[in-house]
């Protein structure tokens, strides 16, 4: 395809606008306090980066503990929410039962309810159950269901070759067998994508973890926002924390670079 001038211009401009803040965060995380306040990025060095990161992780802000908390939440979330939503989407795609359509629409409509609306009563319910300030308080309401994943999984199930599934059933496989031996292997890369999105969503979550667990059991995002509040002038530490918080997004980008886009673009049909 030939490269037209406006196309090049728009795309490279957007590339710059996207990349510059991320590059600046990285440079900031590699600078000392003094160099950063002079905006002397020539002083940025890997050694300074290591010293900044270790000060953030094990210094007074205890960011390491918060990161550990977040990783734990993400792992549990992926391990439970993805399979639970996956099998529900399977039932919606291939079973017939009374009230199916109504139930599906109701579940998807959950997506339209603002998070802040459910979070207020949830806060009082979870506090009454004694889960304030605990990881269970953060996880319990969201660990088994995601309307977003339900829709995407179901849409994907609908595009599977039905003859193949029917054949497997004729060959004697039950619903679980067809799911496990036929459907799941066909959707491997798509399941990976949803797992990735689930992980990153939990990693980035802020409103609910801040309300229900706060400083008692801080996640990385909560710890970072309080770090930023404390050290308004210590930008090299705040930026180092921001860099750490960007790691899952960046590694997702590095690991699945091509794969992600192919999956995102060619397998997701709306």
């Amino acid at each position, binding site marked *: 395809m030939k490269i037209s001038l406006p196309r090049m211009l728009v795309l490279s401009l957007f590339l710059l606008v996207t990349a510059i803040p991320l590059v600046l965060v990285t440079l900031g995380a590699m600078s000392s306090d003094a160099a950063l306040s002079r905006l002397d990025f020539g002083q940025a060095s890997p050694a300074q980066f290591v010293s900044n990161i270790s000060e953030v992780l094990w210094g007074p802000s205890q960011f390491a503990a918060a990161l550990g908390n977040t990783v734990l939440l993400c792992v549990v979330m992926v391990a439970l929410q993805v399979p639970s939503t996956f099998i529900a989407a399977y039932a919606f795609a291939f079973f017939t039962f009374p009230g199916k359509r109504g139930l599906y629409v109701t579940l998807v409509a959950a997506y339209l309810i603002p998070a802040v609306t*459910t979070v207020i009563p949830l806060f009082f319910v979870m506090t009454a159950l004694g889960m304030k300030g605990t990881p269970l308080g953060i996880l319990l309401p969201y660990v088994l*269901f995601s309307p977003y994943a339900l829709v995407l999984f179901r849409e994907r199930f609908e595009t599977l070759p039905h003859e193949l599934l029917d054949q497997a059933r004729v060959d004697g496989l039950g619903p679980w067998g067809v799911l496990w031996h036929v459907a799941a292997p066909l959707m491997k890369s798509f399941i990976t994508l949803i797992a990735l999105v689930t992980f990153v969503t939990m990693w980035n979550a802020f409103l609910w973890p801040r309300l229900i667990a706060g400083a008692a059991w801080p996640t990385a995002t909560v710890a970072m926002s309080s770090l930023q509040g404390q050290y308004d002038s210590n930008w090299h530490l705040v930026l180092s924390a921001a860099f750490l918080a960007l790691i899952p997004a960046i590694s997702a980008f590095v690991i699945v670079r091509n794969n992600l886009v192919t999956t995102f673009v060619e397998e997701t049909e709306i």
Partner: protein
Amino acid sequence: MNQRNDSVVFMRAKPLLFLAPALLGALLAVGIPLVTLLPLSTVEWNLISPLDWGHWDNFARVLGNPQFTDSLGTTLVIAFCASALQLLLGGVIGYYLSVWTRSMKVLAALFLLPWMAAPVAIAVAWKWILAPTGGLLSESMGFRQDLLTNPATAPLVVACVIAWAGTGYTALFVASGLRSIPRHTLDAARIDGAGPSRLFWNIQLPQMRRIAFFLVVTVTLASLNVYDLVYVLTGGGPSGATAMATFTITQTALTTFQVGESAAMAIIFTVVELAVIAVEYLFYRLLTRRFD
């Protein structure tokens, strides 16, 4: 949605076991909170005082509270600017992105980065860039700019940062939608003498209408519900200029402990949000009537 294939594989399978975990999850995440919300909106309670139910005047009180009505207005303005910017830019970039080569895929993945990045980290980055004192922009220009602390510019800055984070996501959806239009449809139109602009208005845009509607709805919802970006970037300030509804509602519940009022606000905000989506749906039906 794609056309439904009506052959159902398992006619008589018992769905309960497959659905039970997700249904339990939906009950916990949405069912129980929604059921408790209405009674909660009528309480007079500050977490310490005895629970006192039946104060339906909470709704009138909240609607007469300028702090809340202003924050609804702020939310609508910021969300409108952010969504419009994001959809427009995303549309243009997606259009240019839709004819990509292999190396363009790497570019596309990079465009997704701000969407996957933690909003708190993004807000920290932009706060550092824009801070009036000690910020990158002020320091490098040598004088104090007050984009974040001026009530006139702060909402626009917030809208721009929201759009910055979401434009790549929008662009990729647009690009993938454009690429899914069958080649022969475009070729046929070209042979009939359609130029690029007729191609766009008469073929590409109509074919994209479902994706466009999906994007408009998801982008609007995301912008209306922004919380973390605002929390870090401005803290709702200066003097409430960027206090979005999410911010006011949580503050009312957990900083000033007016639990009933905050639940009433949450219900009103939900109604406003659903109304916005309904208006968008009406527009969508109106504009696409001739295709269906």
